[in-house]
């Protein structure tokens, strides 16, 4: 059990460093699309939402899960579409 936790913490910390490294010298015009794009990525919590909504126990927990799927999917679909629209604007100019 501790091995799992330590493994997860390792992955977490390494990904934090990758996150720091990935964003370097972003031009100000890309601030909003980048914010919006990473916002869409944070909708990854939809994975957890699907697992709880489809849980074999069902009941209150699964209903909470279904609500979570709705919220997370609005975040994902809305986030990617909004970002795409923003970036399309840049191309035209």
């Amino acid at each position: 059990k501790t091995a799992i936790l330590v493994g997860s913490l390792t992955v977490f910390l390494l990904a934090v460093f990758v996150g720091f490294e990935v964003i370097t010298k972003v031009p100000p015009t890309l601030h909003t699309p980048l914010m919006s794009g990473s916002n869409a990525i944070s909708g990854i919590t939809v994975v957890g939402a699907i697992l709880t909504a489809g849980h074999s126990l069902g009941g209150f927990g699964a209903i909470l899960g279904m609500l979570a799927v709705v919220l997370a999917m609005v975040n994902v679909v809305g986030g990617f579409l909004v970002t795409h629209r923003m970036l399309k604007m840049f191309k035209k100019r």
Partner: protein
Amino acid sequence: MTGSAPLLLAYLASSLLFILGLKQMSHPRSAVRGIVIASMGMLVAIVATLLDPQVAGYTYIVVGLIVGSALGAYLALSVEMTSMPQMVGLLNALGGGASTLVAWADLELSQNQTVDTLIAVGLSGLIGTVTFWGSLVAYAKLEEFKKFKKPFSLPMQPVINGALLLLALVFIGMLATADAGTGQTTSYVLILVVASVLGLFLVLPIGGADMPVVVSLMNSYSGLAGAATGFVIDNNALIIAGSLVGASGVILTQIMCKAMNRSLVNVLFGKMAGGSSGG
């Protein structure tokens, strides 16, 4: 992490697509390609989860997926280009809310959770709820709703916020040690109540002009909430994507502050002249 090898590899592929996408998105020439790559990563993760043998019933999932996608597409396609920042704020609020709900759902569904999972549930609820209310206030300020126009703060606001955060941590401790069942649910709801007040208090004092920075910071929080949820359900895709967004969000917030010639501390505690070390 549990699951079959193909499933775990799919999550790994999805994480790599997120990293690649984000990297490309930070350069003007490859930005459009970047967002496509990142959305592929999301598609891979969702399809993999749908094929997970743990999933026992699809009714709730399908309803949730259809309603959420339709609503998201409608919002994204109908919003004016000038209202994009507040739309990001609104979407971000929903992401935070989703993390809060997943952690709660997991609390109701899984028996015999270990102390570290319960702490992750508590953190997920705390960060998710702060993100939810904080982003909603940011949205309201950017939409220029009259009631939210004026910065609002109580005397000694940073001290109050600090006390609220401490209280939330105490409730997380309660959650981690409570007996399974109502004791856990009660502790979790208490965390949500305190986190809601804290989320409101964090953003209400900040003026409308600084809102883009706040939305960026809240975005970073929603990533961390997702990572905390990853610890709850023991899933690397959530941990990687969440911490990626969390960390890049902090950097992006700092870059934005510099571009606007503001310091982050100034934005967060702008009202407290000289009290920048508080909170």
